[in-house]
């Protein structure tokens, strides 16, 4: 899923300081699963905003809506009759949400309420970690099922570097050295030989480096 973190409330309050009527828009996709942008969080953010503005004697109307998804026009469309009722919208979907809202409603003021972080998964309740960088040419099968692009701090295709220590990455004792995991896994599987092969330079053109990407599926187009 796409994992995000709530923006500091001060930042959000600052963005909407001039408005009197705001719609907080959540999303039932990834951000609901990672507890940052679902219906519940919409309620919490809306209430926090109201408390803050009441406290300052500058009341605001904050309404709440949570869409099925903000990354599909058909759901974004569902706001069409109410958008003009508001001075601004705060989207707490991933970064796609505020963009889709702004594209669909060109006259609306749209603000992002979360900081989108990465594609990853839950390690345990309340802990998420990065797993993929969307390089456009997946090669995890060559590395024991671990992604060195997203998980090695230097995206090394030949690791571990000289900073790998006790299974941890040189940047922090809180970060696993993925290359340590790769070596361990392949050693256990008796496949160390595969790490004696040199990996060609990566073609980054399939990644973000090649410019903004688009996927077209002719079979699905209407």
């Amino acid at each position, binding site marked *: 899923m796409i994992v995000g973190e709530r923006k500091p409330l001060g930042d959000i309050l600052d963005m909407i300081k001039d408005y009197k009527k705001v719609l907080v828009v959540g999303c039932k996709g990834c951000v609901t699963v990672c507890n940052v942008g679902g219906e519940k969080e919409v309620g*919490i953010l809306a209430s*926090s905003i109201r408390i803050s503005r009441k406290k300052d004697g500058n009341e605001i109307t904050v309404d709440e809506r949570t869409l099925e998804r903000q990354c599909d026009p058909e759901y974004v469309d569902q706001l069409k009759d109410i958008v003009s009722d508001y001075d601004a919208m705060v989207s707490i979907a991933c970064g796609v949400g505020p963009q889709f809202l702004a594209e669909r409603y060109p006259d609306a003021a749209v603000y992002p309420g979360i900081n989108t972080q990465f594609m990853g998964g839950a390690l345990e309740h309340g802990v998420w970690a990065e797993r993929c960088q969307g390089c456009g040419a997946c090669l995890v099968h060559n590395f024991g099922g671990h992604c060195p692009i997203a998980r090695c701090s230097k995206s090394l295709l030949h690791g571990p570097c000289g900073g790998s220590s006790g299974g941890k990455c040189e940047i922090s004792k809180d970060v696993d050295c993925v290359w340590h995991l790769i070596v361990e896994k392949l050693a256990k599987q008796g496949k160390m030989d595969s790490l004696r092969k040199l990996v060609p330079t990566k073609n980054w053109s399939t990644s973000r480096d090649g410019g903004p990407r688009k996927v077209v599926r002719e079979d699905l187009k209407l």
Partner: protein
Amino acid sequence: MRLSYPTNVKVIQVPCTGRVDIIHLLKAIEEGADGVYVAGCLEGECHYLAGNLKAKKRVKYVKKVLEEIGMEPDRVEMFNMSSSEGPRFAAVAREMTEKIKALGPSPVRSNS
């Protein structure tokens, strides 16, 4: 045993403090409560295992929210007591009341 506790404390009963969510605490503040606290069972004695521990973390979260918007985090608190401890319940109610009185009325109420 009848114990007197400050009448300004409005008690809302829940089966377990694990049912108390962040939004409930925020709503109380939003509606103008000067303070709100959760009275849960002693740690390690939750009938549903970890309800009171969850409540504790949620209280902590709300404290952070208050801090971020410039309100006193002490307006939200968590207390633990055993269900048989009537006197402690009353004492906590008095303690919290004192604390909130010292902080003064909630700016949410006084400014709106």
